[in-house]
């Protein structure tokens, strides 16, 4: 009867499922190998890495590579630069986009039919391609190698306005109307009612902006040319060219781990919101 058992639909389905999950686990493991490898190298002493670099488990694990990050080089400074630039950009983007989105979603005004398409047109401007005129603009005001130069061009996000407009449009009007009857001002309505109600959209937009700003490479490369003003992303890139690669591999990987740490933590905590944000942001739903 065993032959009949194996061909029974239930068992076939069960074994199919097992094969599926085994294959999936293998694929996921291979997918994560580069990340595991980076962690492993960052925990291995540099002396050992001179001979063995291919172990996924650290040999004679040590935290020395991480300690050295704070002793040698500018990595802590770059990290701080990235934090400042990213946090200010994210908060600025949220405030500006929420205000503009509120105007487009809730207020009737002359010129709306022109202004909204004008903002959407910005979606077609490739930020990466327009760094030459931006460079000149900041050069004329001698503002390169400053935080405002790293922040300002990244704050105006047409996509953010679009997302906020769509989201605010979908909120029912009755609470606002009640507040209006009570004599609340526009600003109060926006600040006390609309903003708290749009927390889901703000979270998604905020995380997304945070990731993109933290990882921005071309504009910081163009604008911040002094070593002290590098962000962690451009700083880490600069190390890959001229670091004593053969002898300091472990320290380099430790810097890579530190550079990714804020985003990895953010990702693990806010995964759900981030994923929804991507779907909403690019789907235009």
């Amino acid at each position, binding site marked *: 009867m065993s032959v009949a058992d194996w061909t029974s639909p239930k068992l076939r389905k069960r074994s199919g499922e097992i094969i599926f*999950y085994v294959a999936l686990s293998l694929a996921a493991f291979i*997918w994560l190998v*580069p*990340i595991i*490898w980076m962690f492993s190298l960052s925990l291995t002493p540099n002396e050992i890495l001179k001979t063995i*670099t*291919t172990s996924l488990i650290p040999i004679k694990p040590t935290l020395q590579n991480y300690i050295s990050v704070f002793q040698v080089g500018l990595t802590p400074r770059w990290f701080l630069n990235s934090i400042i630039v990213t946090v200010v950009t994210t908060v600025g983007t949220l405030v*500006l986009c929420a*205000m*503009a989105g509120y*105007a*487009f979603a809730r*207020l*009737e*005004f*002359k010129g*709306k039919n022109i202004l909204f398409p004008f*903002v959407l*047109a*910005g979606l*077609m*401007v*490739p930020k*990466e*391609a327009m*760094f*030459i*005129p931006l460079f*000149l*603009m900041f050069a004329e005001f001698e503002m390169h190698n400053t935080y405002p130069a790293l922040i*300002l061009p990244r*704050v*105006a996000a*047409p996509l953010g306005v679009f997302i906020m407009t769509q989201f605010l449009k979908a909120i029912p009007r009755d609470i606002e109307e009640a507040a209006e009857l009570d004599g609340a001002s526009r600003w109060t309505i*926006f600040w006390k009612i609309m903003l708290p109600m749009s927390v889901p959209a703000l979270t998604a937009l905020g995380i997304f902006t945070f*990731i993109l700003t*933290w*990882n921005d*490479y*071309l504009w910081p490369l*163009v604008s911040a040319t002094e070593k002290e003003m590098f962000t962690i*992303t451009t700083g*880490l*890139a600069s190390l*890959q060219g001229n670091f004593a690669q053969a002898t300091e*591999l472990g320290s*380099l990987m430790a810097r*890579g781990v530190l*550079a*990714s740490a804020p*985003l*990895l933590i953010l*990702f*693990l905590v806010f995964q759900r919101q981030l*994923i929804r944000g*991507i*779907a909403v942001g*690019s*789907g*235009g739903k």
Partner: protein
Amino acid sequence: MSDSTLAAHAPLQISRWRRWWDRNRDSVDAYLFLAPFLAVYSVFVIYPVIQAVYMSLYDWDLLAMGMREFIGLKNYASMAWGTGITWDLQHLLVWRLVGLVTIPVSWWAAFRGSMRRATAGWLSVAAAVLFAGIMGIHPGEAGGRWNDAVFWTSLGNTVEFVLISTPLIVVIGLAMALALNGSGRSLGLYRTAFFASYVFSVSVLTLIWGYLLQPQRGILAAFLSSLGVEPIPWLTNPSLAMPAIVMATLWWTVGFNMVLFLAGLQDIDPTLYEAAEIDGAGRLMQFRHITLPGLQRTTLMVIVLQIIASFQIFGQVYIMTRGGPGGSTRVLIQHIYESGFRDFELGYASAMSLFLFVIMFVVSFFQFRLSPQEE
């Protein structure tokens, strides 16, 4: 003016002002709310485009800030023209014929009703101009050459990257979404695993992959040698460098497309599958007749986003290979960057930026035309 007339007019003035205020209060508020965004947006997003157009008409030296000379369209000529340029039918014939297939395909789609006729018309015109016309232009045999051959190499490499990476990243993203669509807790863990690589910055990506691909010390070589394969010098071999960049990019960004496809799958009405099941339709039938049509909108969006992102490729190439070996991975943004900041030719770099801008504008234009009209 006598006192009496003033007294008579004052209330009228106030009430007129008052009425204007009542009528325009919303507009005033709206502009106050919009002002901060519009200011930053106009200065840092819109104005640079205009400034780029202006700069592209000048010989604009980065070092001599005061020195610039109006040269009309000469930057565009240095970019896209040369000496002894000719046109003939045979040049790049195979590629052009492949490109021209766009025309029958789009009319077939229009005939089936999945594309508007006007769009098929636009696509055909664009394909005819590009493939039948422009791509036949090249330097002639007898001493002809481009003004800037590197521009064409960079454009060619960029297009190569777009053409290889887009189908791969889109199809694999779709496959991953189909495999991981569902509500089980374990599926969620797998989704997390495959999406995690997206949060790394480009310099962490290159840090990992630069070493991973190394023939002497990389983990890929170690794995391959256990299978008996000789170490492969990925990044130093001109014909392997671009595939290696594509591989790293795939690992980095495919999770993003997976998430978009997963969202698209959520939007398909589940009762359609139930009905199909009752009708006895198999999995493959369901995929062909429910899943694929249901994902049409998402797929189009993913393709367009992918093309736009791929045209702007820079970081991974610049850090890992600096465009080498032998210029085989040099891409358009790198050429713009180096023209501006190594050769100090800001005008010329602006002309190339606008060229890239136009490519992306055309791609987005077709996205708008192709996406189903909203009611």
